[in-house]
């Protein structure tokens, strides 16, 4: 366990070309000692600079483009800087690149410089890229995958074509990771049969298993995914710090990189409103500034470093702005998180992922609440 933890920190430590944030830096320094850190820092930086080109193919399925927009919110470095520093060549991305599908009388025309369909074929033939998938993948209706068609091809087929030749696969966002919002319980759910890449909700397998592709997939869930989680993971891949042959060591049981989605702690642990919780100031109305537990906050069930890393250049966080955590990084999002504004103990669904934590937290609430009540009683008397 200890060595595994060190590996994770080791991975983080080598991401210094991305100007790691202070906390990560301190963590790495603490683990390695200052001199060890400096020695590695130098080597790794030099290595990164001479890194050969890494191709990225980015697909969009049943999605809202929010994860692309979030990636474009990357700061320190910014999106384009990150690509340049890591020598990433973004070969295909429907929202960003120049290409589109072009047909004259039903036949593909022009070249891959303007025609995205030709470009994607060329890329899939060549192989050797990191495949990034945004959005879930419909397997329905009737296993045809025709619920999402692009350029005349079911999206599922496009995933198959590109996944087979990929060096590594990254699912960005909760939809691509687990199905996310597209797997909300409703009467069209089975019909469309939305799948994540390597999981569907909490069940391992996903579209890769259906397609018979035995490759690991790194999940970067979140609705949307935080740009740091994505770029630091891709950086780790490029720097060779995520061993694809033994990737399990760096990932949790739902395929998430442990440094960003720590199995041993939840968002609640570092919530800026944690002090109010500890003092039993549990808001029942919005915009009061206290703990949001009674307003449905799911942070005690959610594993990510949101509360430390924060969002949009480290400026804020859902709970900081008074919004309850929706546990959007969990494979059970959104079904286990709804109703969003109901206290979790009142909902009948438990998060499959974290039953242990649920129990622990419930006990914690009871103890704290009892303590607070005791104090109040004492004061009255």
């Amino acid at each position, binding site marked *: 366990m200890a060595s595994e933890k060190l590996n994770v920190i080791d991975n983080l430590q080598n991401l210094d070309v991305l100007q790691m944030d202070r906390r990560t830096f301190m963590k790495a320094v603490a683990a390695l000692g200052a001199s060890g850190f400096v020695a590695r820092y130098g080597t790794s930086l030099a290595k990164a600079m001479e890194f050969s080109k890494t191709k990225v193919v980015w697909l969009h399925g049943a999605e809202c483009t929010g994860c692309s927009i979030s990636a474009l919110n990357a700061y320190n470095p910014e999106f384009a800087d990150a690509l340049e520093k890591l020598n990433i060549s973004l070969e295909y991305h429907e929202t960003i690149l120049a290409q589109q599908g072009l047909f004259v009388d039903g036949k593909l025309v022009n070249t891959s410089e303007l025609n995205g369909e030709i470009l994607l074929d060329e890329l899939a033939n060549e192989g050797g890229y990191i495949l990034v998938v945004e959005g879930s993948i419909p397997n329905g209706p009737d296993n045809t995958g025709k619920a999402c068609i692009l350029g005349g091809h079911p999206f599922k087929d496009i995933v198959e074509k590109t996944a087979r030749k990929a060096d590594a696969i990254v699912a960005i966002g909760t939809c691509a990771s687990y199905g996310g919002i597209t797997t909300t319980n*409703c009467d069209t759910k089975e019909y469309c049969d939305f799948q994540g890449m390597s999981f569907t909700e909490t069940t391992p397998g996903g579209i890769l298993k259906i397609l018979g592709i035995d490759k690991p997939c790194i999940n970067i869930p979140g609705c949307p995914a935080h740009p740091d989680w994505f770029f630091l993971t891709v950086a780790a891949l490029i720097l060779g710090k995520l061993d694809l042959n033994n990737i399990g060591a760096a990932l949790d049981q739902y395929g998430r990189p442990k440094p960003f989605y720590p199995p041993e702690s939840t968002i609640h642990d570092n919530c800026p409103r944690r002090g109010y919780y500890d003092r039993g100031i549990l808001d029942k109305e919005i915009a009061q500034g206290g703990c949001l537990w009674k307003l449905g906050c799911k942070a005690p069930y959610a594993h990510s470093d949101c509360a430390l890393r924060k969002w949009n250049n480290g400026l804020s966080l859902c709970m900081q702005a008074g919004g309850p955590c929706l546990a959007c990084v969990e494979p059970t999002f959104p079904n286990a998180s709804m109703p969003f*504004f109901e206290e979790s103990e009142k909902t009948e669904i438990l998060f499959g992922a974290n039953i242990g934590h649920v129990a622990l937290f419930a006990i914690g609430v009871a103890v704290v609440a009892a303590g607070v009540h005791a104090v109040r009683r004492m004061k009255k008397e």
Partner: protein
Amino acid sequence: MVKVTVDPLTRIEGHTRITAEVDSNGTIQYAQSGGLLFRGFERMLQGKDPRDSALFVQRICGVCPISHGLTSVNALDHLYGVAESVPQNALAVRNFIQAANMVASHATHIYVLWGPDLSNPRYRDVLTAPEMGLGEVGKNVWSEMVGRFTPLSYKMDGKAIPPGVSYMNALTAKRRCQEALAPFAGKMPHVAILYPGGVTCNPGLGEITKAAATYLKILDFVKDHVLGVDLDVWIENTMKAKSPDAAVNFVVEHLSGLISKADGKFTKENGFKDVEFFATFGSELVGERLLGLPVSLRLDKLGNYNDPSKIQFLSYGAYYKRGQDGYTPESADWERFVTSAITKGDLSREPFDSSKITESIACAFYTDDVQSRHPYNGTTVPVADHNLINFEGDVTSKYSWMKAPRYNGIPAEVGPLARMLAAQDPLIMGLAKTFQTYGMSPASVYMRVLGRMQEVARLAYMLPEWLFDIDPEKPFATSIDFNAAKDAQAIGLWEAPRGALGHWITTDSKGKVSNYQAIVPTTWNLSPRDENGIPGPAEQGLVGNAISGIDNVLGADNTNPISIMHVGRSYDPCVACAIHTVDITGKNAPREYRLL
């Protein structure tokens, strides 16, 4: 006739396709836009707690989540009976985050989605070919276009072209717009704070200061890249101009002054920031006829409407009235900063009335005993015979998953141009009337993009006003009564960056959602034909266009249909809002769908 298809039409949100039939002269004679995909958000909300919807529906679109969230929270305010009492503080926060996101979305559209087409090799050919005789002027214009607007990973003739300067800086500005709103909203995309009766945040001076500091950085981008005159001066002479003529004269004289000093070099240093550059070279009327330049991109001749009686411009209105608590769900004429209104094809104006909205299923893959319904009564039953589901179908058949929304039976364009016309922005209305006077269509690719730019300027001007409306000492929410939401119905009307957005919600006796309906901007703009055979706005806008743009000056090239790219993208389509659950086989078809 040659059939030219763009599928998928990329650099939009989501995926769609456009098909055009092109004659031997390279003129589009006929066009269809097909919505291929849909997801089923409204089904997902059925049986759920209505309060969830304002957070849930943001996941419809990661580019304009705040618009979906606010439209939904407007419906929730109405549903819980608190619309008239939402504290003005909450309305100020909502105004500010909406405006910041609208600027972010417009920057994304202008520079990342629409702009890259200006680096299309066709323009290089036209501007630099010896037979065009444009000499240094042509070369300079091309070098500005490719130097400003080239996207990431771009190649021409096998050679990598570095991304454009404006493009790169716009990425930063877009990020900063989101950082300006994040201190209030928690995070972006998908904000955390929307709740009936107000907002969940209670920001202090710290949050306001952070937002203000970020805003100043955004203004630097406007100053360095977007606008060659001071923002206040621009607003004074356009948005606040005494008359439409005065606004047009101001801009034409400004451009004319720049040209006289430019010595054929249309650089940013010479004052041709992106607005000036586009305003000059985007239009034949402005650039060639009024300013006397030898060349333009003639984008004023793409995306025109040939019959003013078959088109109108619709705005529901947005940005709550300042200085008071509460608002009316259906905003009155001139009440809001962006007012509700209908502008007819001839540019006459009338107040908006939501009861006049219908949706037709004549060319959409649904069945019903009537062809058109109001959204409160809308049904969505897919056709039973899967052979009818054919995207290659013609006007006599069904060919899209999108229904055809109509206002008073006529198609409507929605978006920044429609909003600028509704608000009677002197510059945009003045230009529209100028085009009309010269016998040209007031609507075009040029006007849509310029309308979007002008809206950015107006919002950039207003952002600090809304920011300082926020008073940390006053409340940010009012309480709601859950009983009010039982057996009720409510309407939310608002504006997304790409146009009018409406949500209609109905609840059951337990106060759970029984029906949730939405009509999104792209359904208006990219709608198919209706039961009277009238094509949707984009379908009308493509007919008559030269397939290769600039009047096919170097001949028609069907393999590079630049006019379809320009026109399709000029509406800033958001088909991510359209849902990804197409019933292809007709088997096991869900009984009801609603296209978002």
